[in-house]
């Protein structure tokens, strides 16, 4: 770990967060949803849109997305990051933004995302079709995998083969997510879900049923990052970024060297090293659960259990409310919200937990949180370690 990265530990804090339109919002565009979340996050930080001089944003459909966002919000940023790493993007945006703040390039960075994926006429099916031309995978597409789900299904098949992981254990991930969602008024699916219902749901790509797959919703999320010094003068309790790292090992699933080990093992190790903390120090954990297998892989790769033990780790309510580890306390992508790229919602839920704003689902005395983003088909991984003032010491 370089001294420069260590010195960035806790140098910036998230001082504002907001979500908007999580679930179903017919009649709104991606940009309109984003603008509502952005405005609310800036207000939550006690700032004005004119205070924002840095922007991080990405879109699954527009390659030059930062440009219309700057224009729409009327910004004049001195720092712009439009790096698109799929769903891990917004968590990956933190470290460069901290560097930009630290060196004085900018002082208040807005990280924002909005998608009307569920309601838009140009929806997921069309985006998938368009991507075959814009982002071709000529060595996978001819075999007609249902991407992304078939890629995760292949990883799941391998995990089951190597470690004896069962469909019941995968189902327990979805059941736990739903139990948390039941406590979250913002979650899209809140009715009780049983293991039997997950197993008996329509099979999509074996071994994953539709209940092993994330929601398709609309939604927007935003957060505001400022220096730690400035955050202490703003109205909300600062949530410090103690560590952040990003790793990419491949694009397509057929190029993944080991289907049971993701680049989260690298991003997690580096984020923890920067934070000077370990998995056992985490009070709440927000993982990018696009599919149930994700949660197992990330619990293992981030060090919460040994490789291969993810299935046994999550069995029988261990990550549900009242379990041994609080994972995906908003209901995750499986039950709360998933408008294409979920990462920013993992980050926002981590901040809300550390602020103590989570009502019924609040984890008591939460001072540290991990938020992890995934993008592509287990392709990109970004890990953030967050903490309150107590954790900063």
């Amino acid at each position, binding site marked *: 770990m370089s001294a420069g990265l260590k010195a960035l530990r806790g140098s910036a804090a998230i001082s504002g967060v907001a979500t908007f339109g999580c679930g179903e919002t017919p009649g709104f565009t991606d940009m309109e949803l984003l603008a509502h979340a952005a405005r609310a996050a800036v207000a939550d930080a006690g700032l004005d849109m004119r205070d924002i001089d840095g922007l991080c944003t990405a879109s699954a459909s527009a390659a030059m997305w930062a440009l219309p966002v700057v224009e729409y919000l009327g910004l004049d940023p001195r720092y712009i990051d439009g790096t698109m790493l799929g769903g891990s993007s917004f968590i990956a945006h933190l470290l460069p933004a901290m560097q930009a703040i630290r060196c004085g390039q900018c002082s208040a960075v807005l990280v924002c995302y909005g998608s009307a994926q569920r309601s838009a006429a140009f929806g997921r099916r069309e985006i998938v079709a368009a991507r075959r031309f814009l982002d071709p995978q*000529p*060595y*996978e597409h*001819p*075999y*007609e*995998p*249902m991407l992304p789900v*078939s890629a995760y*299904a*292949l*990883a799941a*098949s*391998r995990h089951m*083969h190597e470690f004896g992981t069962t469909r019941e254990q995968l189902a327990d991930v979805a059941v736990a997510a739903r139990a948390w969602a039941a406590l979250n008024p913002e979650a899209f699916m809140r009715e009780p879900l049983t293991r039997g219902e997950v197993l008996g749901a*329509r*099979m*999509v*790509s*074996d*071994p994953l049923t539709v209940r092993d797959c994330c929601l398709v919703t609309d939604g927007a999320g935003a957060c505001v990052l400022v220096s730690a010094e400035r955050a202490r003068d703003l109205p909300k309790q600062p949530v410090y970024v103690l560590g952040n790292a990003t790793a990419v090992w491949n694009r*397509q*699933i*057929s*190029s993944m060297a080991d*289907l049971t080990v993701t680049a989260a093992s690298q991003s997690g190790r580096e984020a923890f090293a920067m934070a000077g903390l370990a998995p056992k120090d985490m009070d709440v954990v927000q993982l990018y659960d696009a599919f149930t297998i994700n949660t197992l892989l990330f619990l293992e790769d981030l060090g919460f259990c040994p490789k291969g033990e993810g299935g046994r780790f999550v069995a029988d309510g261990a990550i549900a409310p009242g379990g041994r580890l609080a994972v995906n306390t908003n209901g995750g992508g499986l039950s709360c919200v998933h408008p294409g790229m979920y990462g920013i919602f993992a980050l926002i839920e981590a901040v809300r937990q550390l602020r103590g704003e989570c009502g019924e689902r609040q984890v008591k005395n939460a001072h540290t949180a991990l938020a992890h983003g995934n993008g592509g088909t287990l392709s990109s991984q970004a890990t953030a370690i967050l903490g309150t003032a107590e954790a900063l010491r």
Partner: protein
Amino acid sequence: MNDNSIGVQAFHQRELDAGRFLLQRCGDCGRHVYYPRECCPHCGGTALEWKTPGGLGTVHAVTTVRRKPADGGDLNVSLVDLDEGVRLMTRIENLAPEAVRIGLRVQARVQVKDGRGLVLFDAIEGAAA
């Protein structure tokens, strides 16, 4: 074999369309490379040569894509490790999708359909690893 007047992707497809499955091998580091590239992802070298693989491999991961009969019905998608040490996405064609298992030994063949070649595999009977 490649005259360098077209990229390796087009060359590879042209050979497939003629019924020939080729693999690259790096003359610098000796490792096989798939999918075809202009430089070796292992060592960065450019001395990539085309080889005809033995075509034997092992199913590494498997899924059945569930589709309505109108959309073509259930479909096997597998990742196969060729004995040369590369992995590729493919389909195992001579078994029902749900009968394909990890560890199954398989043999490559090229299917040419409407002039377009595609690498597919068949299970080798009685040779499951």
